[in-house]
């Protein structure tokens, strides 16, 4: 396999991690907005607890995708950033608002009304951002971004303001919400909370199925190359069958409350969707004018990058494992250092913020 293919693979791996981890953080925001009724407060607390310690680390996967793209495939980065200037800018605004509102809410827990305001910004940004991310990926897949002599000729609106990318946007949103609901069933031992996220997982899972079908139908005209790949290539049928099996197993295990299995299958489902798209688009980065090999940086850069990725992965994965082992699963609520501002107390509540022993 050539160097540029390995690097492109690494980029899709990072994108997959971003979807699996960062995506679920967005999904958490969706459920924050939809939290209703007597359990709303507990649900919000559970979501905040699940996102808090990890969202910044999860977010770095997106940065890794971007730096791999501009280091290893600079012309592709230039074209994408030019043609999709508008949705990318909106995406950034969403990212800024989501991250800062979440943090402000965490550290500004004084009154309920203030809390509410940050919650709204956080959750609405969590909904808009995945839609934009989907639109961006959808337009890259659509084949509508054209380039002549390094100049983008398809304008700044047409490639992304179209039914197919927009459908992909909502598909991404549904997927992330679904993923979050499935993960959240494992973040608590409270049966009621588990049940409410189980129900949400089942509902959003159905939405995922419906939107997947919509996207597939629209791809006929919206993204012909990807459609051809997904229906005519030799790997297409097995891929569809395996993805369908995972989807069915997710539903079944949610039904049976086998949440660990559900989490595994939901993650596998999303991974297969992303890789199916990548395979269908191969060998293009931006269909139809930019291929992996035509955009690739020279070998010295690719070799250096691959070495860095390999060494980085050796250090990173254990660190990530440690992070998740400390905070993920049914762990006690994370106590922030003095979340409620103690006004001038003499014995500081270093003791007060210790969580209750289980």
């Amino acid at each position, binding site marked *: 396999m050539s160097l540029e293919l390995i690097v492109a693979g690494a980029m899709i791996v990072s994108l997959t991690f971003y979807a699996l981890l960062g995506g679920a953080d967005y999904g958490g925001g969706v459920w924050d907005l939809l939290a209703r009724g007597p359990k709303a407060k507990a649900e919000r607390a559970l979501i905040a607890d699940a996102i808090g310690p990890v969202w910044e680390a999860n977010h*770095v996967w997106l940065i890794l995708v971007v730096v791999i793209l501009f280091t290893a495939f600079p012309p592709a980065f230039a074209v994408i950033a030019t043609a999709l200037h508008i949705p990318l800018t909106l995406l950034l605004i969403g990212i800024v608002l989501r991250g800062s509102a979440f943090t402000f809410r965490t550290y500004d827990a004084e009154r309920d009304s203030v809390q509410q305001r940050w919650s709204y910004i956080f959750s609405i940004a969590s909904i808009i951002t995945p839609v934009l991310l989907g639109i961006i990926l959808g337009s890259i897949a659509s084949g509508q971004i054209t380039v002549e002599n390094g100049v983008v000729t398809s304008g700044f609106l047409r490639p992304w303001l179209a039914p197919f990318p927009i459908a992909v946007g909502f598909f991404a949103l549904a997927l992330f919400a679904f993923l979050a609901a499935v993960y959240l069933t494992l973040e608590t031992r409270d049966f009621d909370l588990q049940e409410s996220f189980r129900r949400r997982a089942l509902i959003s899972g159905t939405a995922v199925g419906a939107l997947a079908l919509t996207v597939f139908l629209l791809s006929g005209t919206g993204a012909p190359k990807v459609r051809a790949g997904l229906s005519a290539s030799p790997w297409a049928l097995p891929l569809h069958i395996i993805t369908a099996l995972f989807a069915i197993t997710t539903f079944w295990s949610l039904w049976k409350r086998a949440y660990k299995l559900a989490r595994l299958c939901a993650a596998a489902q999303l991974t297969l969707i992303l890789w199916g798209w990548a395979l269908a688009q191969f060998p293009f980065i931006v269909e139809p004018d930019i291929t992996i090999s035509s955009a690739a940086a020279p070998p010295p850069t690719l070799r250096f990058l691959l070495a860095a990725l390999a060494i980085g992965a050796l250090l990173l994965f254990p660190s990530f494992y440690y992070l998740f082992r400390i905070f993920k699963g049914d762990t006690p609520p994370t106590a922030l250092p003095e979340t409620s*501002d103690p006004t001038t107390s003499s014995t500081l509540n270093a003791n007060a913020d210790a969580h209750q022993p289980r």
Partner: protein
Amino acid sequence: MSDLLAARSQMAMSLAFHIVFAAIGIAMPLLMVVSEFFYLRTREEIYLTLAKRWAKGTAILFAVGAVSGTVLSFELGLLWPRFMGWAGAIIGMPFSLEGFAFFTEAIFLGIYLYGWQRVPPRAHLLAGVLVAVSGALSGIFVVIANAWMNSPTGFEIVGGQPVNIDPVAAMLNPMALSQTLHMTIAAYAATGFAVSGIHAYLLRDRTNPFHRRALAIALTVGGIAALLQPLSGDLSARAVALNQPAKLAALEGQFKTEAGAPLRIGGIPDEERGETRYAIEIPRGLSFLAFHDTRATVKGLEAFPRDHWPNTRIVHFAFQAMVALGMLMMGTALWGAYGWWRRRALPDGKWFLRTLMLLAPAGMIAIEAGWTVTEVGRQPWIIQGVMRTSEAVTPMPGLVVPFITFTLLYIFLAVIVVWLLLRQVAASPRIAETEKIEPREEESRFVA
């Protein structure tokens, strides 16, 4: 506003915003770790509280740093696609390495902030150390990329395209050492002084030992950095003299090529008349500082075509401001050191504390000024001598719209951050010097 100007303004605004949070992200973890280290040594509750207090503020600032940094990585392509398309293969590497530093930083910051009761005390301290180290590394990597723009190496140009790319040589460019050193020290100096200023204000209540300890730690870090900063600035100036003579001429307001050029303090460069007026001149000073030889010839702006001149006024003023603030900070650091040497205690006189309060923003202003020198001084080039900024900009029309949008967004964030931090400062704790937390008590609070 032309699209080029809008793009430049948006980039400048985004960087000027991000750099404040970045500098704090580099230095605050060090302060927290020092405090936590003292806590583990002495078991005095004050140090634990201090570390937690600082961590709380840092968490807010870090999140804003992370999102504004994300904006920057996209903006490189959104605003300068031709630059990135051309240079990505050469200077992408430091950004990629920076990515790994970010991962380390974000992972261990999560553990540090949320893990007080989840991991053993030593592991917690270690997480803090990793955050401090990776924060410094991320700054170093990105400044290496900037240094390459000032002194591009590691490629050849054939037919307008870069060939024979050597990303290692690009990272080892001639400005890399001076710039990374200067920026890293700047982060500790600026943050140390900012934190000292706040605690100096809170020390109105002289008997509160909490702020005394806080001030001691912050001022030690900030003061040592402030003493080193002029030395590293000298290294920077010599690197500029060698690699970017037009920038050196602009920052010194030197219009004529001259042997034994004077060092100018103050003054207003007048590009029309080709001279800097009202400056105090120290004979042969510039030749000495730039080349360590009082008779060396310094190229003036007249040696360069008119359209290769940066905006002399901005560059000269920014440079003067940075150096003046640097001198003030160094002087204050010496004052503190002298007091400590005389009395084995930090001075806490009214005037010393007032000076510290006054200098709280000095380091941050100097950082902004320094970047203005570096960036505006490089104009009209985006890559010195290779690509003009006007050639790099995106063809996207209407760039004032994102410029204004991001400006408003950042103003909004800045207001909120300041308000949240002020509220935290207002809730100043008071702990008696003697309160200790027994190790056993500590262990029992930690649930594995």
